Structures are given as structure tokens and as C-alpha cells.
């Protein structure tokens, strides 16, 4: 399994050191950064884990860091930390798919729980994205004819009716349908329909956060 990374970004070096101390004492390994640019230079789109970032920073702030991560389609969960959250900022942070927003100073329990939830969410997200991409790859292998037949079958039409609309013999329809099943690695129309739903999932939707654990 890929290792999980925890990035911490804060321009206040004392706060940065204290988050490092807190998470290290609780068994995590973190990578501290004094600026978002330094962090972005180290992050890979395939990284699993979470980012704990301050909102207010000179040069590049937390919101801009969040946008930069969205741009590279990062699956890292984002925990925004701030001294005072203006309503407009809070709404933007959450709309851009942050895991949570925590006001400073906070109970350490809240940060530790957010990290745990963030790591799980990041794993979930990368797995879900992998499944969707894999399903899309399988559908891409179908010829247009196979796809047309499969679509009608999924809509509930029997082979005979499909043959009539597409002007094909029932045997050809069935042969092509079997080829499609083979390429998709499914054994029934129902399975093919489920795979199609997965392939059609919008990747952005995978950003929707799971509800928090009971606290």
C-alpha cells in the first residue's frame, strides 16, 4: 500500500512546530512547510493523505492552495485552520470541497479526528476514482456497434427487437452482445448496467464528503 502523507502548511513557524509536535506525539509522520509554494513543489497528484493549512498567509493563502490542489486533481483531504473564519471564506472553503474548517485555537482532539477522517476520505476517494477510471477504460474498448446493442439491451429490449431497430439478425446481435460482455468482464445485462453507472460517475462528485464520525 502506498504510504500516506500529511502536509502541514503555516507561515507561523512556532505554530508549525507545535502541529508537528502534536501529530508526532500521536504517532503520525508529517511534512511541515512554511509556505504553500514549497508544499506544492513536493506534492504528486497520486498522493494519498491530507493537508492541514492555515487560511491567512502572505503570498499565497489557504484558498489559493486549495485551488492549486484541485487543479492537479489531488485526492488529498484538506483541513483548513484559521484564527477567525469570515462567513464568505468559510462558504468558499467548504464549496471547494474541504474536509473541514477549524478555528484556532482548537481542542487537539478535533484536529486529530479530522486527520483520521481525512486519511480515510483520501483513501476512499482515490479508490473510487480508480474504479471509475477502470470502468471507463473497459467501455472505451467497445466498438460503436457493440455499444449501440448494449445500450438497447440495458434499456430492456430483447435481442429480437434490437435486431429490428438496428437492422441486424438476432444472431449477430447476440454475438456482438457476448463480445461486449467479454470486453467489459461482465456476465449479465444487469452487471453491464452497473458498470456503466460507475463509468458515468462524474469525478467531481467523488469529492462530496462523507459525514463526520460520531464525536
Amino acid at each position, binding site marked *: 500500500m502506498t504510504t500516506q502523507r500529511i502536509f502541514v502548511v503555516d507561515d507561523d513557524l512556532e505554530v508549525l512546530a*507545535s*502541529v508537528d509536535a*502534536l501529530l508526532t*506525539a*500521536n504517532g503520525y509522520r508529517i511534512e511541515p512547510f512554511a509556505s504553500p509554494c514549497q508544499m506544492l513543489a513536493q506534492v504528486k497528484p497520486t498522493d494519498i493523505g491530507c493537508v492541514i493549512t492555515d487560511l491567512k498567509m502572505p503570498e499565497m493563502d489557504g484558498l489559493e492552495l486549495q485551488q492549486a490542489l484541485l487543479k492537479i486533481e489531488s485526492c488529498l483531504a484538506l483541513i483548513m485552520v484559521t484564527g477567525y473564519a469570515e462567513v464568505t471564506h468559510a462558504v468558499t472553503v467548504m464549496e471547494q470541497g474541504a474536509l473541514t474548517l477549524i478555528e*484556532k*485555537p*482548537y*481542542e487537539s482532539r478535533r484536529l486529530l479526528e479530522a486527520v483520521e477522517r481525512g486519511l480515510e476520505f483520501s483513501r476512499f476517494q482515490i479508490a473510487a476514482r480508480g474504479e471509475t477510471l477502470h470502468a471507463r477504460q473497459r467501455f472505451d474498448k467497445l466498438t460503436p456497434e457493440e455499444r449501440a446493442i448494449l445500450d438497447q439491451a440495458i434499456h430492456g429490449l430483447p435481442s429480437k427487437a434490437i435486431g429490428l431497430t438496428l437492422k441486424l439478425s438476432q444472431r449477430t446481435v447476440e454475438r456482438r452482445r457476448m463480445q461486449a460482455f467479454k470486453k467489459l468482464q461482465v456476465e449479465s445485462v444487469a452487471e453491464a448496467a452497473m458498470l456503466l453507472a460507475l463509468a458515468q460517475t462524474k469525478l467531481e462528485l467523488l469529492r462530496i464528503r462523507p459525514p463526520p464520525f460520531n464525536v
Partner: protein
Amino acid sequence: MRSVVGNSGPLLNGSKVIDRVVGSMRDVTQRVTDQEQIAVQQAELLHVSRLSTLGMTSAAISHELNQPLTAAANFASACEGLLEGRTDEFANRLRGYVKEMSKQCLRAGQIVRRLSEFSRKSPNRWSTVDLNLVLLDSVALIEVELRAKKTRLRHEFSTNLPPIQGDRVQLQQVFVNLLSNAADAMQGIPEDDRWVTISCSRESDCLLVQIDDQGPGISPEAAERIFQPFVTTKSNHSGIGLSICQTIIESHGGEITFAPSPPRGTRFAVKLPLSHRVVRR
């Protein structure tokens, strides 16, 4: 009722003998009303600034305070984490103490939060504002101070600026503060050179106010901490002015910056957006 000022004096003839007496009477009612109006505005500004200073001060310093409080709370919790699994008497006592430390940090954080919420609950005075009028008011309010500081003022306002949304008195507070700072910056140079320039213009989707002085400029060390509260290079100031200015301008969705203004002096620039979603702070 009208106010009148009378003057009179003798006129001497060729042999230095009083020939006639000349007198004049001037109606100064308008001037007196103007001065009274300025006095009223100054009093209003002072009153409001007293009211809002506590709130604005705490808003300005809450970030500064929250940072060390967060660090302290985190370090205390880290100790707690390191003590996990240890059950000896020493560890138990230490655990109790560091738990209490975290709790006290959070308590201090709540006090700071309550203070800055106090400022956000102050009555909403937002309205549609003509920035030129705000600047003219600010200039009128600072005139006496500038005269005392032997500083002259030049203004270059653009006409027909679109209105903005904002708190007139808070914005006045910002410009009065910046003008006063500009005058302070020039106390070390010859009186003839003490010029403050204030200009206002439109720049795509915002209004730009620039205040230039001819002073010696801001040292790099001072520049780094200039917006931090309680940082000042003046012996008789609290160092809260610029951090309040920044808090006010940011609450208007704008930004305040400064840069050297060649050939000498400093330029403070205030950018205020034409449209800002009004959110109660």
C-alpha cells in the same frame, strides 16, 4: 443670528497726523458654521473611534493572539500524547497539568473571540458611499492637524466616481489616520518640502486612493511588521492605527499596501472594490 468681524485703523496724512479712520465689517457667519460643522464631525469621529477601537483592536490582534495560543495548546497536547501508556504517579500528575494547560489556552482563545464578536455586533452603518465626499471630509478633519504640523496638502480627485458600499465613518478613520501618518513622516524635513498628496481614481473594478508623503521612507525592518498591532516607531503612539486601518479595509473587501514613492517618500495605496458582497463581520 449672524457673526461679524470688525476691523478699524487710522489713516495718516503727509505730516503723520491722523487724517481719517477706516473701518470694515465682514460677515463670517459661513466660516463659523463651517468650523462648527468640522468640530461636530471631529467629535463624531472621536466618539465612533472610541466605540469601535476596542472591537477593532481585538479583531486586529485576535489573529496575533490566536497563533501563540494555538501553538501553546498544541505543545501541551503533544505532552499528553507522549505520556500515553504511562501510569506512574509522576506521569499522572504531569498529564493532569498539561490537560489543564490546553484548557486554559482554549479559555483565552474564547475571550479573544468574544471580544472580536463584540465589534461585529456593533450597529451596521453600511451604506452607499461617495468616496470623494469621504475623502473631502477626511481632508477637512485633518486640516487643523496638518497646519500644526506645518504640512501642506494637495488633492487630485477624479470626478464621477461610481459609489461603493461601505461604512463612511470607518473609511474616514482610515484616511485621517493615513494623512496624519504622512504628516508625521515629514517632521524631520524642511517645512517647505512637507507636502502630502492624496489622489483618488478608478482602476477597472475598484477605486484606488493613494497618499504620498515626502518623508525619509520606511526602513525594511519596520516595513516587515508595519501592520502588526502595537508595533510603532513613534514614542507617543500605541501602534494600533495601521492594523485597524487594515482590518477596516479588509472588511470592505479591499486591500491596503505601501511602497516607496520615488524620488523620495512613501505611498500608501488603498484599493476598494466597486462591488463587495456585504457580510456582517
